[in-house]
């Protein structure tokens, strides 16, 4: 009988263990959710560029049609190809990040098998609706990315992503004057929905536009390692 090679990561097949077999903490997993076209993939790409020198990063995309977001990241060459993988979601991207996270957990372990221990795994959801959120079994923290062009009433409408995410990112602020979105109103509504939870307004067109979000990730990493 041909047996598989001994595994370097025997936490395989378990769920939600925060430590590896050697006692070190596994990679921090951060989810990025939000509606179609709000700039999740662009935010992932910008975060990779900002953090790849200081952290060992990998990305998992949950596409609707196979690999389009993964291929976008590959074309942009934000990470070497072996650090980017796509999970197929059977036409239900929210199922793969919330109700049945097994394929995403497999993908995390496959990435660590392929490239060695990671510090950070970014899990991007397929563009879905305002109710799609990540399971706590899959990610340790999640950000919800909306954009000003999608309507300045999204924060007011709420929904689990807007109200409960660890970070709300309002993207494409450079477009606000052109689409007639009221950023102050969005900030007020978001604060009302989210209480103390942070909100970031960003434009990836400006230089170092992802800095605030990247700093938030750095803080998360520091807290994760210290925990």
């Amino acid at each position, binding site marked *: 009988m041909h*047996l*598989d090679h001994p595994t370097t990561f025997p936490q*395989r097949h378990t769920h939600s263990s925060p430590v590896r077999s050697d006692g070190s903490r596994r990679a921090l997993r951060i989810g990025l959710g939000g509606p179609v076209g709000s700039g999740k993939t662009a935010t992932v790409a910008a975060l990779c560029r900002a953090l790849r020198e200081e952290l060992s990063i990998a990305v998992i995309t949950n596409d*609707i*049609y196979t690999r389009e977001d993964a291929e976008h990241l590959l074309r942009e060459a934000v990470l070497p190809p072996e650090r980017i993988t796509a999970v197929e979601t*059977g*036409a239900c991207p929210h199922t793969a990040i919330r109700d049945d996270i*097994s*394929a995403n957990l*497999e993908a995390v372990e496959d990435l660590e098998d392929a490239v060695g221990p990671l510090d950070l795994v970014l899990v991007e959801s397929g563009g879905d609706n305002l109710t799609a959120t990540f399971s706590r079994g899959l990610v340790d923290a999640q950000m919800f990315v909306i954009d000003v062009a999608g309507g300045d009433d999204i924060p007011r409408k709420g929904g689990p992503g807007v109200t409960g995410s660890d970070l709300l990112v309002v993207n494409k602020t450079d477009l606000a004057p052109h689409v007639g979105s009221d950023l102050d109103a969005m900030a007020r509504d978001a604060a009302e929905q989210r209480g103390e939870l942070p909100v970031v307004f960003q434009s990836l067109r400006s230089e170092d536009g992802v800095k605030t979000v990247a700093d938030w990730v750095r803080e998360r990493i520091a807290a994760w390692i210290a925990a």
Partner: protein
Amino acid sequence: MSRSALLILADGRFPAGGHAHSGGAEAAVAAGRITDAVSLHAFCRGRLHTAGLVAAALAAAAADGVEPLALDEAADARTASAALRTASRRLGRQLMRAAHAAWPDPQLDALAAALPRGAHQPVVLGVAARAGGLGPLDAAHCAAYESVGGPATAVVRLLGLDPFDATAVLAGLGPDLDTVAERAVTAARSAAVQGVEALPAASAPLLDIGAETHAARATRLFAS
């Protein structure tokens, strides 16, 4: 036996990855072989009596205590398509994770340790059923039902088929499901005595060909 364990294991919401697989239905829809509830029924019936029977017999044998590594080899030989072997092992890993949470058991751990890249899904299903206190017939029913439940759900998403029609297709296959589960258990009992070659090896050429066609497609909704 524990009937509630059977319901949990057979539940489409059991988090073991099945939702992302169409059981060959997406390829058959793309080729125009499934267009409505009638052709879905014909597809499911053919799959049930071929791939479904083989999976049910493997699961029944594993639940009966037949050596899982021998069953895994038997599954490899009965899965000609490389794309289907990959899908089956991946689903086996995902099921292992869910089963490990539901019914922790040394037999599951031993199988995971021997094949960390994943055992074939029906073999894991049988060992999981055993861990949950279920018998070979329950395991066979689970595998048989999965072999048609996956395609039916997928076709609802792919064709916008009326979900009531899809459910009626599954209900209509009830007698076939019972027959296949019973055949599978008989074969599993023979395999316990005569070895794994006594297990059925029913193949479906178009499922094998379609699996490779599907794997080569740039755009698809389901993993297999």
